[in-house]
Every structure is written in C-alpha cells, then in structure tokens.
C-alpha cells in the first residue's frame, strides 16, 4: 500500500526534523532553568540589598543572554518543515496544533521580548522591584512558551478532545480543556521543564566548580552552587515524580513504547524492571521482529508491573502480545486493527466519491459515520493502521528506545545524587576539598545535555511508526516533494546549526573565562 512513497524521502524528512529538533533542544532547556535561577539570585539581591548578589545575577544573566540570543528562532525552522516536508500532517492536525502554537507565539513575543529588554537594559533605570518582576516574568514567559508546544506534542502522543471532519480532512478541537489538561500533557510539561531546571542547575554547578578548582570567583561560585543545588534537588524530585507519572500514562496510551523502553517482548504478570541491561540478538527470531534478548541484565523483580499499574502482580504486555494480540488480556491483534483502519480509510474515500458524484443520500449517511461514537471507537481510532502492510511495522527501534530510556533515567538519578552531595559539602564547608566531585560536576554538563536529548529520543523514536498515535503513520504524513531538496536543506541546517553551536560555545567559554567583572 505504501509502495509509492519513497522511503528515502521519509528518512531524509525525519532526519531533518530530528536534526532541527535536537539542535533546538540544545538551547531551550538552559533557557527554561537558568531564567528561574537568575530570578532567585536577583530576589536574594533585592531582599538582602547585597551588591554581591547583583554581581552574581548579572554574571549568569550574561550567559543566559548568550544562550537565548543564539537559540532564539531556531524552533521556527520546525514550523517551516511542517508546511514543506509534512504538509499532509499539518493539514490533518488542523487547529489542534495551530491554536497552541499561535498562543505560544503571542505569549513568547509579548512576555519575553518586552521584559527581557527590561532585564538586560533596565539595571539602574527602573526600580529594583520592577526589574525583579521583569526577570520573573521572563522566566515564566519562557516556561509558558514551552507549555503550549508541549500541549501540542502531547496531543500527538495521545490525540483527545477533537472531532475529525471528513469534508476537510482536518481534526477540529471540540474540547480545549481535554487537550490542554490531558494527563499526558500535564506530565509531559512538568517532566520537560523540570529536566530543563536540572540541566541548568548542573550547568551552574559545573561552571562554579571550575572556578573553585581554578581558585577564582570563590564567593560567586559557592553562592551559585547553593542556589543551583537547592533548586536542582527540588527539581530532580519533581522530575522523578513526573517521570513516573509519564510512564504510567505511556503504558495506557502507548503500550508499545512502554514495552520497547523496557525491552519487554513477551508480556508477564509480575514483570521485573530491568535496571541495567545489554541487548543482544536473540536466536530464533522467526517473526522478523528484530527480537533482542539480554546478554546481561540486572532486574528488580515485579517492579515493572508496579510501576505500570501500581500492583506487583499486574500483567504488562510485551511487544509480541501487542502485535499478535492476547485474548486473555483483551488485546486486539494488529492485523485486526489494520483491517479496521483500512475500512475507515475506505469510508473516507467513498464519502469523497459520493460528494463528487452529488449522491447526497450516500454522502449524508457516510458523513454521519464519522460522528457516530461506535464507528469512531471501532474503526476511526485505528485509521492510521490502514496505511500499514505488515503488522511488524508497529514495532519501534527497541534497542534505541531501551538504551535512550535507561541513559535518561540513570543520569537523572546520578544528578540527584550529585546535587545532594554538593549541598552536603556546602553545609559541611568541605567543597574545596572535594576535587573529584568538582571535576565530576564539570563532566556532568555534557551528560545533562545527553540525558535531555535521550528523553526526547524516547518520546519521539519510541512512538514510531506514528506521527499521531494510531491515526497517522509518519510515512503518510510526509509531503510528496523532491528528496534532493530535503537533502540540500538537511545539510544547510547542519552547517547553520553547527555554526551557531560553535558561536555559542566560543562566546560562552570566553565569558566564563572573563568571569564576573
């Protein structure tokens, strides 16, 4: 059914989107977290009146400014790509995606662009309190921008609150609150912004540690570590809590992603959680499912069942259960879903033919189906499966999902531990002696970025083949354009973004070496 879609076009379009999103996400999390750290530092300045806090605030504000300036508008490229490379998708999502992005654009423009000017230009020109308010508003504005983007992304992971209009082929929002307050959206938002807070805390601690090791800016470094480790520790706990909440959502709305991130092929009651594992090709992969076994793994018994359903003996479906179906667990086989999806697609085709032939009776009858709850739940919810030829196409890249997830979780716990150690060392006044910890925290800066990117790889690669869960596969979302043009723009972006990254790193490193003068 998909033989006319050039697979290399899909791959290059996906590659380009991934490249853009990954580069964009290098700049965003630091903005999200550092803005709040700066606001806290400035609050301490306003409350205590000590000029040292003003100096500390201004130093981190400069690094924030560098990151903000280099990163600003890198996300707009994703919107360019929607219209050019993903036109079927852009049309199909309708106002569900448009509304949150429009709100984001307005909020970002007014909140950030207005108050960021006061934040940078307003020292000694506006009152201390007005300046402080502006700094907090920049932080809230940046995070609110993220909210709308993440609401839109959460809808793709769990499409709710909409009605498909078969006349326009667009999804129309019928319940804004269902979209906005979907549990997937709430957990995604909290998890994503807190990951940014932890990354920014690690960034501040890493640079401050460098100063301590170099015996420079001792006062700035220790005060910064104090603020960042408290903020980071609280954020880490929220990050773990929201991560747990996200996982519980995934098991319901994206069970295949859940099975993939745990490398679980055969469902089990009382399934164990693989804490650490190395995957290897399993013998006897007769179903061509690229089945991987564990060459080595450490498992916490029954914990996966508890994590997923809150019960130690609950059944957790594996990849094979979700593909082949499981009668005992009421899991429909993918083959059935493909048939249902095909019927939904055929109904759409018939409706268009009836409309073109001015067959009003048939047209009205078919159109009514798309509003009928029975048709929606039995057939339309599997619309995307109608594009698939083979039931194994629903399996994402399991090793990639598994390793990304475990990298993210492992590093998340490492950061929690490090933040705690820093706080402890500060209170015991032993920070200068902890050379290993100080050096480790510098190494943690790139690791924090790695964890953050791994999180998005879990979210986006783990949900393949879907661009909108169960409704639209990635290969059907792509525009029929020339592959060469996508290749050209891929390399243009690669060069542009690499140049921006080099500029960011060189300006930032120079500024850090200069210090707080």
């Amino acid at each position, binding site marked *: *059914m*998909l*033989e*006319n*879609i050039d697979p290399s076009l899909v791959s290059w379009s996906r590659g380009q989107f991934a490249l853009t999103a990954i580069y964009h996400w290098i700049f965003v999390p630091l903005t999200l977290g550092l803005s709040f750290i700066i606001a806290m530092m400035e609050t301490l300045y306003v409350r205590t009146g000590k000029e040292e806090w003003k100096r500390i605030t201004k130093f981190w504000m*400069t690094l924030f*400014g*560098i990151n903000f*300036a*280099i990163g*600003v*508008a890198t996300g*707009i*490229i994703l919107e*360019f*790509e929607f*219209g*050019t490379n993903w*036109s*079927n998708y*852009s*049309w*199909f999502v309708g106002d569900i995606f448009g509304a949150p992005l429009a709100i984001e654009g307005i909020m970002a423009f007014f909140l950030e662009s207005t108050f960021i*000017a006061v934040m*940078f*230009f*307003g020292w000694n*020109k506006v009152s201390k309190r007005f300046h402080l308010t502006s700094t907090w508003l920049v932080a809230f504005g940046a995070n609110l921008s993220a909210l709308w983007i993440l609401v839109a992304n959460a809808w793709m992971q769990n499409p709710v609150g909409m009605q498909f209009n*078969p*006349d*326009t*082929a*667009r999804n129309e929002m019928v319940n804004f609150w269902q979209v906005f307050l979907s549990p997937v959206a709430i957990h995604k938002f909290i998890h994503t912004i807190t990951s940014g807070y932890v990354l920014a805390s690690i960034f501040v601690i890493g640079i401050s540690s460098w100063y301590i090791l170099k015996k420079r800016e001792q006062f700035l470094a220790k005060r910064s570590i104090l603020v960042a480790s408290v903020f980071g520790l609280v954020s880490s706990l929220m990050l773990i809590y929201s991560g747990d909440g996200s996982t519980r959502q995934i098991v319901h709305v994206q069970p295949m992603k859940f099975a993939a991130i745990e490398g679980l092929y055969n469902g089990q009651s009382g399934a164990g959680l693989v804490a650490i594992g190395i995957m290897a090709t399993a013998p006897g992969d007769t179903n061509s499912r690229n089945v991987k076994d564990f060459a080595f793994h450490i498992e916490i018994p029954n914990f996966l069942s508890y994590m997923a359903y809150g019960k130690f003996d609950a059944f957790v479906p594996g990849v094979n259960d979700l593909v082949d179906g499981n009668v005992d667990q009421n899991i429909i086989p993918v083959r059935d879903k493909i048939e249902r999806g095909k019927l939904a*697609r*055929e109904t*759409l*085709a018939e409706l*268009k033919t009836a409309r073109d032939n001015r067959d009003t009776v048939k047209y009205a009858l078919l159109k009514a189906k798309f509003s009928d709850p029975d048709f929606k739940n039995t057939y339309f919810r599997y619309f995307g499966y109608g594009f698939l030829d083979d039931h194994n196409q629903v399996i994402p890249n399991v090793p990639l999902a598994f390793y990304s997830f475990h990298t993210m979780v492992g590093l998340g716990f490492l950061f929690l531990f490090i933040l705690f150690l820093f706080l402890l060392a500060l209170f015991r006044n032993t920070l200068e002696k902890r050379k290993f910890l100080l050096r480790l925290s510098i190494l943690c800066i790139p690791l924090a970025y790695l964890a953050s990117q791994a999180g998005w790889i879990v979210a986006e690669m783990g949900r393949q083949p879907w661009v909108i869960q169960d409704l639209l596969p990635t290969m*059907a979302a792509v*525009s*029929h*354009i020339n592959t060469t*043009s996508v290749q*050209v*723009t891929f390399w*243009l972006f690669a060069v*542009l973004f690499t140049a*921006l990254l080099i*500029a960011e790193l060189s*300006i930032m490193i120079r*500024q850090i070496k200069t210090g707080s003068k």
Partner: protein
Amino acid sequence: MERSLFQRIFLFYYDGFRNMTVGKKLWVIILIKLFILFAILKLFFFPDILKVRFTNDRDRADYVIEQLSKPR
C-alpha cells in the same frame, strides 16, 4: 523638560543597545541568523506546499483526502 512616554521608551532601548558589550556581537549573530532563516531558507527552500500548489482550502482538503484515503 519632562520627556514623553515614547521618548522615554526610545531612550531606554537606545541607551541599552549603546551600552552593550557582549550583546553587540550577539545582535549581529541574531540578525544574520534571522536573515538566513527568513530571507533565504523560508523564501527559497521552504514553501508551504499546499498553499503553493492549490488556490483554495477546498482543493487542499480534496488533495489531502486523496492522499489519506486512496490505496497507494
């Protein structure tokens, strides 16, 4: 003499830009980046496919319905 609100806003930004140190370099990067994004990439490489190929929403909808429903 008391300055008007607009004069004060103008001077706020004017002085701010004049007194920038690292910021001047950053503004150059921002402007070059925006020029590349909007004047080159958007204009020459990223047309809105459905807007370019079709003149109205009816035709766009029909095209997408065809894409989504026809056996490929």
